[in-house]
């Protein structure tokens, strides 16, 4: 019999609907995998009962002949940045430890309405700030992947959605939610050999998602393949009156319209992404990607995105500025930690609470944000960065007159060992150098696995499309997926 935990969203949904197996069997299988994977530290809390009761509801509906929903019977992992009613929501921080929302985020509500259940809340970089999953208050997440050199170095699953990438890659969940502010879905997907989609800004409601940088934050699916991502994105997306930047437009049936025939399509190759000292294996994977898309019928064209090199520094002004403002709410008054020394006043309580509740990377970004927004520096830093952001968006706008979708590497390297980049914040930030431009421009983008490097570690290719054209992005992703035939899996050691 098929091992149910090897299946993805579509296979589970269709198998439950046809009666090949029950939703309860699926939930039990994944609950068992989750329980046996403590070594990976992918979950902050597990919610096996949530998964089982959602599964039982689906099985009961099927017995009555009712419709099961686009994710009927699929248990998923929920990044612990989404507020879940009655289940602790921490953003992997100490300051929110014990916070138990009285409400459900729109995205998670939408997923439950589509028939999904929850296996647990997934670990992440604290407040989604990080690219290696080493900033969580609840400890590092370890990737299921290892270098084959026998050293057993624990590897980074990427970040910030590193619990999500590890859970899907290690078959602890068939799919998981992620959020992407400057690469936090795409980079971990690339590091762990899975597929992840960051939709157009506004597609998925931000309501109930712990805010990092509100003009950039977007939720999206992380799953085994493009089809599963199309299904899950369809369940997550939709207009929400509770989010002022939510897109008020219909959600297309992305799954039904998937088509890997790219005849008549033009794929842009941005010359500025070919940086000096580029990892030759990354370059090779990019060349291979071009060949696959050509084989799918597309024409490859060279394009220019002249302000690419300024995207990352602009991001590291804009994102911390918004973070410093968003995180002002953690003050020990309304929720979360309160640190009130004897005899201390209100101002001391704020400063003590925030000192005890935030990790180093979060403090670093709040300070940078506070500095670039402060009187005398606002124009030189924040305003200049917002102008650069306009230029980056205009670069893409110009590119769409020459091509339909852009192909680039997702990351400048494969995964690295935990601790190997600890001392170098800028080196860590460079992980997202290829991911950040699409974030600044609000564009849909995805990472799809394309192979493994000489160390046996996964590599991803990135596709970026015009606003609202998730379909074009996923179609090109599907064309790569069909040709890459990526079947590598991390050997189980946990």
């Amino acid at each position, binding site marked *: 019999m098929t091992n149910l935990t090897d299946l993805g969203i579509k296979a589970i949904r269709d198998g439950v609907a046809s009666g090949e197996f029950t939703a309860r069997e699926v939930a039990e299988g994944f609950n068992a995998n989750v329980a046996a994977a403590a070594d990976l530290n992918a979950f902050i809390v597990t919610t096996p009962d949530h998964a089982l009761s959602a599964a039982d509801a689906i099985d009961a509906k099927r017995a009555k002949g009712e419709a099961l929903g686009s994710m009927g019977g699929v248990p998923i992992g929920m990044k612990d940045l989404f507020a879940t009613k009655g289940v602790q929501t921490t953003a992997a921080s100490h300051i929110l430890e014990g916070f138990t929302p009285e409400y459900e985020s729109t995205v998670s509500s939408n997923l439950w309405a589509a028939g999904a259940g929850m296996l647990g809340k997934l670990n992440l970089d604290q407040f989604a700030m990080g690219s290696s999953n080493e900033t969580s208050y609840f400890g590092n997440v370890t990737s299921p992947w290892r270098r084959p050199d026998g050293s057993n170095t624990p590897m980074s699953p990427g970040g910030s959605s590193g619990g999500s990438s590890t859970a899907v890659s290690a078959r602890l969940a068939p799919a998981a939610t992620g959020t992407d502010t400057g690469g936090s879905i795409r980079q971990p997907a690339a590091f762990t050999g899975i597929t992840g989609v960051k939709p157009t800004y506004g597609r998925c409601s931000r309501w109930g998602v712990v805010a990092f940088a509100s003009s950039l934050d977007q939720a999206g699916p992380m799953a085994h393949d493009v089809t599963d991502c199309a299904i899950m994105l369809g369940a997550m997306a939709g207009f929400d009156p509770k989010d002022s930047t939510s897109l008020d437009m219909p959600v297309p049936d992305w799954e039904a319209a998937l088509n890997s025939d790219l005849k008549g399509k033009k794929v842009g190759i941005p010359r500025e992404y070919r940086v000096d000292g580029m990892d030759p294996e990354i370059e090779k994977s990019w060349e291979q990607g071009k060949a696959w898309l050509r084989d799918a019928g597309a024409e490859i064209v060279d394009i220019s995105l002249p302000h690419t090199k300024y995207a990352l520094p602009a991001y590291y002004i804009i994102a911390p500025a918004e973070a410093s403002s968003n995180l002002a709410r953690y003050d020990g008054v309304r929720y979360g930690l309160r640190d009130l020394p004897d005899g201390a006043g209100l101002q001391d309580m704020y400063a003590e609470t925030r*000192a005890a509740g935030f990790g180093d990377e979060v403090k670093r970004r709040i300070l940078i944000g506070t*500095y670039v927004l402060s009187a005398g520096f606002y124009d030189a830093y924040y305003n200049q960065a917002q102008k650069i952001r306009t230029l980056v968006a205009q670069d893409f706008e110009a590119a769409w007159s020459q091509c339909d979708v852009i192909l680039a590497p997702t990351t400048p390297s494969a995964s690295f060992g935990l601790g190997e980049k600890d001392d170098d914040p800028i080196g860590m930030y460079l992980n997202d150098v290829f991911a950040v431009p699409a974030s600044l421009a*609000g564009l849909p983008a995805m990472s799809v696995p394309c192979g493994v490097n000489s160390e046996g570690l996964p590599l991803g290719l990135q596709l970026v499309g015009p606003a609202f054209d998730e379909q074009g992005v996923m179609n090109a992703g599907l064309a790569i997926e069909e040709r890459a035939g990526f079947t590598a899996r991390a050997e189980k050691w946990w």
Partner: protein
Amino acid sequence: MSIDRATVAKIASLARIKMSDAELDRMAPELNNILKFVDQLSEVDTSNVEPMTAVIPNKLRLREDAVNADPKTGGDRREDILANAPAAEHGFFGVPKVIE
């Protein structure tokens, strides 16, 4: 632009994050490295560029000016809002004495 330890202390105070001397010493060079990295933005001529205000053009919606005009965005949830407060008293958030 380079910032010294006193400036870091000032920013930390503005951000209401208490920092020890050792933390300030550690943070100052880290922040300087990041600021050095972002300083390259100054080489771009942006004199004719508007700063971005909305990444995807979108119209801000207005609701009817009435309490609970839309139950989805409405209020009347005091208990829910106070449920996670470290100190809630008489339907309010409790804080240390502010006025002497």
